């Protein structure tokens, strides 16, 4: 079989979901071709590879497409079996990591609502977000019973990648709305988790500069807010 495997990743620079896939490939040391998609003018190829959702990321491995970021992460872990492993080996621990990765869905829905609303609606979204983060902080005590590891030895895994895609550029939302929400007083574990991940070279390579994220959030916000009279 001496064929070289072809790995392509269709992404979008501002998409945290695409970032998950890129980060996983980098952590695993997989050579891949990155294809930037214009989400306002989707390529024929993207529509062919993900006809159901028409979204990024899509991983194309030897011509075969895999869509949905969490599905892609699991696939990467199964195909490239050398360490570092993205998921633990033990079935119970795997179920716990998958559970918390699934929790990222209601969490990001609430984050989105916080970004695109104003007034009382936004205040409610903010409170909901902070409460969900309390739940996450509590949950991570079980995942990291000995505190946050140094990711210098053990590279980031599945759950680290998912979590970082949500919180890695928290400073941007904080700057946009003039209010810190990821505070060390209320979320000591989450704060040390983000900070530890920021030290990892592969993570730095996929992290957007904060001013760019601020502009992105502003753009998303403007598109969703009702036009002013």
């Amino acid at each position, binding site marked *: 079989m001496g064929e070289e495997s072809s790995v392509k990743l269709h992404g979008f620079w501002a998409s945290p979901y695409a970032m998950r896939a890129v980060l996983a490939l980098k952590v695993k040391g997989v050579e891949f071709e990155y294809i930037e998609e214009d989400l306002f003018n989707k390529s024929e190829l993207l529509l062919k590879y993900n006809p*159901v959702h028409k979204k990024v990321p899509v991983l194309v*491995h030897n011509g*075969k497409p*895999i*869509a*949905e970021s*969490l*599905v*892609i992460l*699991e*696939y990467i872990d*199964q*195909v490239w079996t050398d360490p570092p492993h993205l998921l633990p080996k033990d*079935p*119970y621990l*795997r*179920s716990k990591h*998958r*559970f918390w990765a*699934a*929790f990222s869905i209601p969490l990001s829905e609430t984050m989105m609502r916080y970004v695109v609303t104003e007034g009382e609606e936004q205040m409610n979204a903010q409170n909901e977000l902070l409460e969900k983060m309390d*739940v996450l902080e509590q*949950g991570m005590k079980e995942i990291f019973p000995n505190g946050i590891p140094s990711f210098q030895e053990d590279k980031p895994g599945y759950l680290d990648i998912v979590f970082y895609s949500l919180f890695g550029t928290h400073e941007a939302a904080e700057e946009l709305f003039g209010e810190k929400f990821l505070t060390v007083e209320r979320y000591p574990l989450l704060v040390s988790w983000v900070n530890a991940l920021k030290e990892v070279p592969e993570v730095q390579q996929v992290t957007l500069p904060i001013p760019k994220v601020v502009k992105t959030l502003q753009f998303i916000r403007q598109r969703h807010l009702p036009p002013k009279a």
Partner: protein
Amino acid sequence: MGNKAMLLDFWPSPFGMRTRIALAEKGVKYEYKDEDLSNKSELLLAMNPVHKKIPVFVHNNKPVCESLIIVEYIDEVWSKDKPLLPSDPYLKAQARFWADFADKKVYESGARIWKTKGEEQEKAKKDFIENLTILVQQLGDNPYFGGDTFGYVDVAIIPFYTWFYTFEMAGNFKVEESCPKVIEWAKRCLQRESVKALPDPIKVYDFFLELKKMLGIE
């Protein structure tokens, strides 16, 4: 080391049904506990403090939550016989994708049928049939979504069949007319002992009527 297994569930829940089917397929002995969702037990709240929902699979006193995560856990622990997920990574990824589609699109649009009226309901019916049609295309010429064998995606979707009658009554339509292939597949699955054990669709509909009354929906 014991092998204690308990399932906290609610009989009409399609998510709970997934876990019942997986456990039956694997021949796992477990204690079944039906929860009163209007009066959740201390145990449920302790085992799933985050969502306070069923199903929860408690294995040797350790809880596993979220139906698809539970099914995968069962497949990984009782891995000798009747694998539910394919071993090939690409086929496994496809199975995960379509189970996710079942939740995001099929279940979501089905639930919208009984939650809405008028124009909104017509859209929900249209979406539901469209999503079912996309889904059954994945069958191709195979008897199951798992190919020749009943697998993860079949487990994920067949519980919704018990709710089809309810959707049909709520939306005044027949799934078989718009999507006969899905009924064909469902009847094939119903030949399995694990699926035969699912609640009768009429009973599910009776429950739904009670639920509507309780929630004060017309």
